[in-house]
């Protein structure tokens, strides 16, 4: 799924905003191949994502679902901090960090994100493949796969 690469980003407000970074989201590679075969345009969005070790799975906003014209590939039961559970749609996407890290097939859940500027939560399903270094004094975060 991943080649060995490092993605480093510096944030002046790391403590206040958390480890956020820009990512490019598209449909998954198999879906892109299907769209190309049908000579359809491949949608793509560049959004702010929060690296969230409290999220077991990667999640995307409803805006991303709309912009990428995603259709569901499943449903999943989600538990939030208020102890409620509900069914959410699951989608297949691809995700790029910078130039070197590209995840071709990623299952992500639709979510109502509180912070309207954040459209993606990078969950532990991605983090389990790499090493995350949070360097507070230098306001720097490094993600290595």
């Amino acid at each position, binding site marked *: 799924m991943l080649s060995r690469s490092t993605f480093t980003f510096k944030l002046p407000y790391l403590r206040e905003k958390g480890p956020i970074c820009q990512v490019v989201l598209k*449909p*998954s590679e*198999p*879906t892109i*191949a*299907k*769209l190309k075969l*049908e000579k359809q345009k491949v949608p793509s969005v560049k959004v702010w994502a*929060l690296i*969230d070790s*409290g*999220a*077991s*799975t990667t*999640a995307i906003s*409803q805006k991303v679902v709309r912009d990428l014209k995603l*259709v*569901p*590939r*499943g*449903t*999943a*039961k*989600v*538990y*939030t*901090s*208020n102890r*409620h559970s509900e*069914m*959410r*749609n699951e989608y*297949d996407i691809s995700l790029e960090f910078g130039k070197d890290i590209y995840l071709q*097939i990623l*299952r992500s*859940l*639709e*979510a*109502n*994100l*509180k*912070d309207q500027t*954040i459209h993606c*939560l990078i969950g532990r399903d991605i983090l389990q493949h790499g090493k995350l270094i949070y360097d507070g004094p230098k306001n720097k975060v490094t993600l290595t796969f």
Partner: protein
Amino acid sequence: MRAILAKEYKVYVDQLEHFLPQHLNQYVLIKEQKVVGFYDSYEDALKRGLERFGNVPFFVRMVQEVEEMHFFQQGLSA
């Protein structure tokens, strides 16, 4: 927000007992409440669904005894 594939999910839950003996840890593909097949990877199931039905909703899920739970400690509204 609503779960569009709720009916397919119900098929999965209702038939899980029958899936488990032979298809544990495989991925099941369900479309319009019918089981299409079982595959060794999510990618294989996804490709098969796209090939057969096109880029439309269909249900893919790993066959597991205990349903995977997804947790979000923060960041989501209620």
